[in-house]
């Protein structure tokens, strides 16, 4: 229908989405810095003028509390959410718009989406993940033998300070 042929689709579950419609740069920056200090990874991040942060669901409440402490009082927390990564992007709006249209056409919620130079990331409510995976794989012609595959490896990253 959209002329898209996915080469890969990956899924990561048990995440949460923290959103604010307006996030002043200093407050958003303070939140990002504090999340980093506490070792919380951001699986997706978009700032300006709103704020979208995707992080592990188990620490979402902590993140929302931190948001309040830096003055971001009107944050919305959606948990759990699932994150899909779709390849390839091909430098056009076709894949992001097609993915959003596929989900909308099935009555599924696309909470947020964003791109890297090569891939599309989109976030759906956890309860809709299975339906979203099936719809995206079928309607965006996921190549036979490719994913879907869950990203089951969780990297516990430790950043050491210089000299330690």
């Amino acid at each position, binding site marked *: 229908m959209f002329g898209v042929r996915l080469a890969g689709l990956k899924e990561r579950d048990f995440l949460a989405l923290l959103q604010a419609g307006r996030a002043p740069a200093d407050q958003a920056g303070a939140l990002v810095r504090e999340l980093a200090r506490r070792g919380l990874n951001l699986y997706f991040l978009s700032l300006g003028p709103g704020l979208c942060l995707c992080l592990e669901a188990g620490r979402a409440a902590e993140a929302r509390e931190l948001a309040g402490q830096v003055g971001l009082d009107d944050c919305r927390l959606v948990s759990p959410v699932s994150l899909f990564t779709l390849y390839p992007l091909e430098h056009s709006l076709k894949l992001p718009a097609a993915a959003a249209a596929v989900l909308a056409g099935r009555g599924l919620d696309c909470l947020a989406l*964003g791109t890297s130079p090569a891939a599309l990331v989109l976030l759906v409510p956890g309860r809709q993940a299975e339906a979203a995976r099936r719809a995206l794989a079928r309607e965006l012609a996921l190549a036979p033998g490719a994913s879907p595959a869950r990203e089951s490896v969780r990297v516990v*990253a430790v950043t050491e300070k210089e000299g330690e």
Partner: protein
Amino acid sequence: METVAVFNEHPVQTYGILLRHHLALLEARGDDPRPQVLAQARPPLEMVICAAAWQEGEWWLKVCLPAEAVPRLQELAPAAGLRPEAPRPVSLLVLQGPHFGDRPGIAAAALAGLEQAGVEPLLLQGAVHSLMLAVEPAQAARAREGLGAYFSVPE
């Protein structure tokens, strides 16, 4: 399965920092979006990066695209149920590095570099293994210099 990774890089190693000029940042909103209109555009609508989310009851779309591609997106936006705002000229910095999608602190380091340079990003986006920063074109060189204090590129 958990994998413990220890990163001890100062500055953070990247595969490279790319700086692109002659781009624009276009924002559009609508409460009844029809994304299929944008998906079916022929030839496809050119862009560099985009982000979208439901916020405050509306679908907010942000697109960073070549400046010459702006008029076509503006033209199609109403049919897609979107109200475009005036585009802003931007330059885009793209950082890619090992495990950027899995390790904490990358965005915070980039913000620290920009703060040191006195630059406020118009858009900051982290997805997969990339971090992207849209800035005012006049501040691009300063932003690149600020990032250089926190990120290294291969020789």
